[in-house]
């Protein structure tokens, strides 16, 4: 049986005036049904690009290489009709920034009903207006919003409420995979906690696969079983949440984890941890390991060798020369 | 970021030069804008050089002896008007007046609009309320009708036309400048400048104006375009100065002297095409400039 989502050697470049901008540079990833995967990395490292490629939603300027398999079927070569069928019913997306992802002039209820009607009543009993309305009401209640909000316009809701609507919308057709792209970034701490809790509950009770993207490792660690860390279009670390968070194998993951200190941890008191240097410019990546100019522990070797993911633990891979090169070089397959 | 010992003013100059060359680079890639600029350059050069290249005496009805409404011929490449003057020459010289009127009226309107827009956005409160009420009032006034009224009331002449156009077309600039000023004023760097101790003058001259002026400039080029059309319309309605040769007044005399009836296309086409060419050139330039200055539009037009 094929995995829910499988990325094989995925590369994505954007055509731009300055030439090709590599956004994703060879990513291998597998997500099984019911699994939750967190994806972290700093701004511009290619997280959203990767997520959008799953539903072939990238702009026309994107050049895609490799394979994107949804239930074993390659999204890249699907007919457009088939793709439309897969969209939302097979995999849905919670977009970054709910304010803009909702159409400002349509009522919430209509926007929720839209995917249901489009997919012939998927997620409702039938495609009849009454059934669709009922389904919309249920969806709203599922995310903790009163049914009457179906009549509201997006601007009448708060940021947290809108994000809930987006989640409800993602669940409308009962997809097997949900991709949440920074679902909480713009939200306040407290609201963020509410949304994350909700998302966690929904995923665990319905057994769907979740890919969640954020730049905040601690947020991901609370919700996801596994964590992937990206740097400059590559996956640099992949493993169970606790391990990546607390025993990171890649220096970048380490820095990322340290940037969100644990309150009460005397080690970080009056000692903010940072990573010197600037994020890499995708058009002009340094040679060797792309991280080496900022790496506190880089060696001469790092300047020349471009390291791919290596097996650090049975379930834990990292792309760093310090990880012993014992097992296969071209890992990426979970065990 | 190179030279070691530069004075701040040298730095500023270097910066300006760089910004200008960057803007020029962005402008250059827009083919229509470039075409507009070239067209404008050619037309402006011709207009400026008219006294050198042509004999202005041939504009004097008392000195010419061509046929009345004569068709194009070897002597008169674009035929003659009802008084036997060369239409080519009239069109050529008409460009001078039309351009002058267009530029001056646009300038007047843009200056008024900018001052009102910046002041009303910067000071807010009742200043803004009054100025905006004023602007809104002028904005709803049908500007052509008002210009007609003004040119009826004032002494006939180029200056009146300039005044009439300038005084009636500023509100849209004021709105634009106000919107732009408001958006600049909402930027954190204004708050920072104020926190650094900068007063109104500092904020307006160092931050607001520099970021508003380029857009005002683009707006001016567009305003020139509409001022030229407005001039021709007023002249056509008989509100211009009949002793001045402008494209509008040429069209008026063409229309009232039977150019349409006699099919004297050579009298009707050149001034009209002149207007279209200049207005189009200004519009293209203005749009290209806007695209350069307003990144939101970049790559869309």
């Amino acid at each position, binding site marked *: 049986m094929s995995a829910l989502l499988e990325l094989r050697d995925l590369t994505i470049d954007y055509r731009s005036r300055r030439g090709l901008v590599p956004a994703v540079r060879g990513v291998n990833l597998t997500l099984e049904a019911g699994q939750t995967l967190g994806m972290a990395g700093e701004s511009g490292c290619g997280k959203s690009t990767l997520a959008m490629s799953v539903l072939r939603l990238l702009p026309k300027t994107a050049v895609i290489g490799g394979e994107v398999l949804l239930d074993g079927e390659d999204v890249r070569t699907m007919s457009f009709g088939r793709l439309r*069928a897969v969209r939302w019913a097979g995999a849905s997306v919670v977009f970054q920034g709910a304010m803009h992802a909702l159409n400002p002039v349509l009522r919430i209820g209509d926007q929720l009903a839209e995917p249901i009607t489009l997919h012939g009543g998927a997620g409702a009993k039938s495609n009849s207006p009454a059934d669709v309305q009922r389904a919309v009401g249920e969806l709203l209640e599922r995310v903790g919003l009163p049914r009457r909000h179906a009549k509201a316009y997006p601007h009448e809701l708060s940021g947290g409420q809108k994000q809930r609507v987006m989640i409800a919308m993602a669940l409308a057709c009962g997809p097997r995979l949900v991709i949440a792209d920074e679902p909480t970034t713009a939200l306040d701490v407290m609201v963020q906690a509410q949304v994350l809790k909700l998302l966690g509950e929904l995923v665990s009770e319905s057994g769907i696969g979740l890919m969640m993207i954020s730049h905040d490792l601690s947020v991901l660690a609370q919700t996801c079983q596994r964590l992937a860390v990206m740097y400059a279009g590559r996956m640099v670390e992949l493993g169970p949440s606790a391990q990546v968070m607390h025993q990171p194998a890649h220096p970048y993951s380490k820095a990322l984890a340290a940037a969100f200190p644990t309150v009460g941890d005397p080690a970080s008191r009056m000692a903010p941890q940072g990573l010197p240097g600037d994020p890499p410019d995708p058009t002009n990546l340094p040679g060797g390991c792309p991280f080496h100019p900022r790496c506190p522990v880089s060696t001469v070797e790092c300047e020349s060798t471009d390291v791919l993911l290596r097996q650090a633990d049975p379930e834990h891979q990292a792309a760093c020369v310090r990880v012993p090169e014992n097992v296969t070089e071209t890992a990426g397959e979970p065990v | 970021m190179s030279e070691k010992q530069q004075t701040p003013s040298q730095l500023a100059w270097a910066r300006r030069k760089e910004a200008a060359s960057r803007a020029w680079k962005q402008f250059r890639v827009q083919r229509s804008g470039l075409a507009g600029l070239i067209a404008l350059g050619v037309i402006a050069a011709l207009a400026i050089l008219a006294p050198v290249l042509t004999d202005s005496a041939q504009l004097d009805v008392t000195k010419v002896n061509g046929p009345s409404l004569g068709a194009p011929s070897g002597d008169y490449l674009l035929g003659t008007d009802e008084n036997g003057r060369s239409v080519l020459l009239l069109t050529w010289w008409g460009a001078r007046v039309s351009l002058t009127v267009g530029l001056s009226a646009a300038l007047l309107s843009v200056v008024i609009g900018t001052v009102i827009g910046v002041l009303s956005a910067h000071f807010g409160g009742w200043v803004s309320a009054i100025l905006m009420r004023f602007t809104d009032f002028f904005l*709803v006034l049908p500007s052509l009708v008002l210009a007609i009224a003004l040119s009826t009331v004032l002494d006939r002449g180029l200056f009146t036309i300039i005044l009439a156009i300038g005084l009636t077309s500023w509100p849209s600039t004021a709105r634009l400048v106000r919107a732009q000023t408001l958006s600049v004023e909402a930027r954190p760097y204004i708050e920072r400048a104020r926190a650094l101790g900068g007063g109104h003058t500092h904020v307006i001259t160092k931050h607001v104006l520099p970021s508003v002026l380029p857009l005002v400039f683009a*707006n001016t080029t567009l305003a020139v375009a509409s001022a030229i059309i407005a001039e021709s319309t007023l002249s056509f309605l008989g509100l211009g100065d009949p002793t001045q040769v402008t494209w509008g007044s040429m069209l008026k005399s063409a229309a009232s002297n039977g150019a349409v009836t006699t099919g004297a296309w050579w009298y*009707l086409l050149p001034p009209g095409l002149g207007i279209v060419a200049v207005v189009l050139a200004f519009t293209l330039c203005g749009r290209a400039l806007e695209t350069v200055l307003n990144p939101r539009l970049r790559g869309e037009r």
Partner: protein
Amino acid sequence: MTDLLTPGEQTEPPASTGRRSSSGTLRFVLGKLGGAVISVAFVAGLGFLLFRVLPGDPVLTMTRGRPTTPEAIAELRIRFGLDDPLWKQFLDYVGGLLTGDFGTSYAYSRPVGEMILERVGPTLLLVGTGTILAVILGMWIGIRGAWEHGSRFDRTTTSLALTLWSVPTFWLGLLLLMLTGNLFPSGGMVDPSTPKEFLPQLLDTAHHLVLPCITFVAVVYAQYQLVMRSSLLEEMGADYLNTARAKGMREDMVRRRHAVPNAMLPAITLVFLHLGLVVQGAITVETVFSWPGLGLLLYEALSYPDLPLLQGVFTVLAGSVVAMNVVADLLYRVFDPRVRAV
């Protein structure tokens, strides 16, 4: 007139976060109406002052060239209240306006209001037909152009729009007159010999309408096209379009259901905002084609010059623009839920 080409001037919907409230709506409507009333008052005052500054004695203009006696002149001065002090003239004028009396035309010795009323119909017919056609044409091209932006269709239509936009209306009218030869009448609205029945009158009017309407549309539609195009382009990158696509929607549905309605808002509002201004475009068209509307009336009043008539037409035109602005504001509120709730 360039207004439409300049971005940023587009009416920005006031950012709002509040909830809907009926008292807010009422306050909004009242505020707008109040503003409009003030504007109209300004217009009336301005109109009065402006034309009072006119040099020359209107009575002399009136009587020039025909036998008159000093007594008759004095009589006329009194009849038109020209010997009253300015403030009294103003009070009379305002009082008249309030009772719907625009004064008496110098040239025609008829109530100005009546004369204006006669000409409103033809102008509405011309401007109305023209605007409807221009809006349909402009929006359609604008939407298509934006959706396929960069395509040949887009490039040609945009260039065409910019070119037409640069054409003086009256010149286009003259050219059309010259080029169409015998196909269309040279002027007027309906032939006197046409039977006074509905269908022949309609057809004849339509026949007369063709050239003025084409002229009008050609110059006006470009604005709508450019506005619609940039408005839609602005929406093209919007995230909710991606959401719609991600839901599995077909591209043309994305356009119809999501992109266009959003882009339509500013465009429609602008149409209304500019409708009032467009009326003045009728001045030149009506003059060229002898179309018996307000514009022609203004032109005639101008050449006389007939002060009360000028004043009346000016007030009515400006007033209609003010009214259109109020309509535009209210429409925005009706159509855009974001603004409605304040």
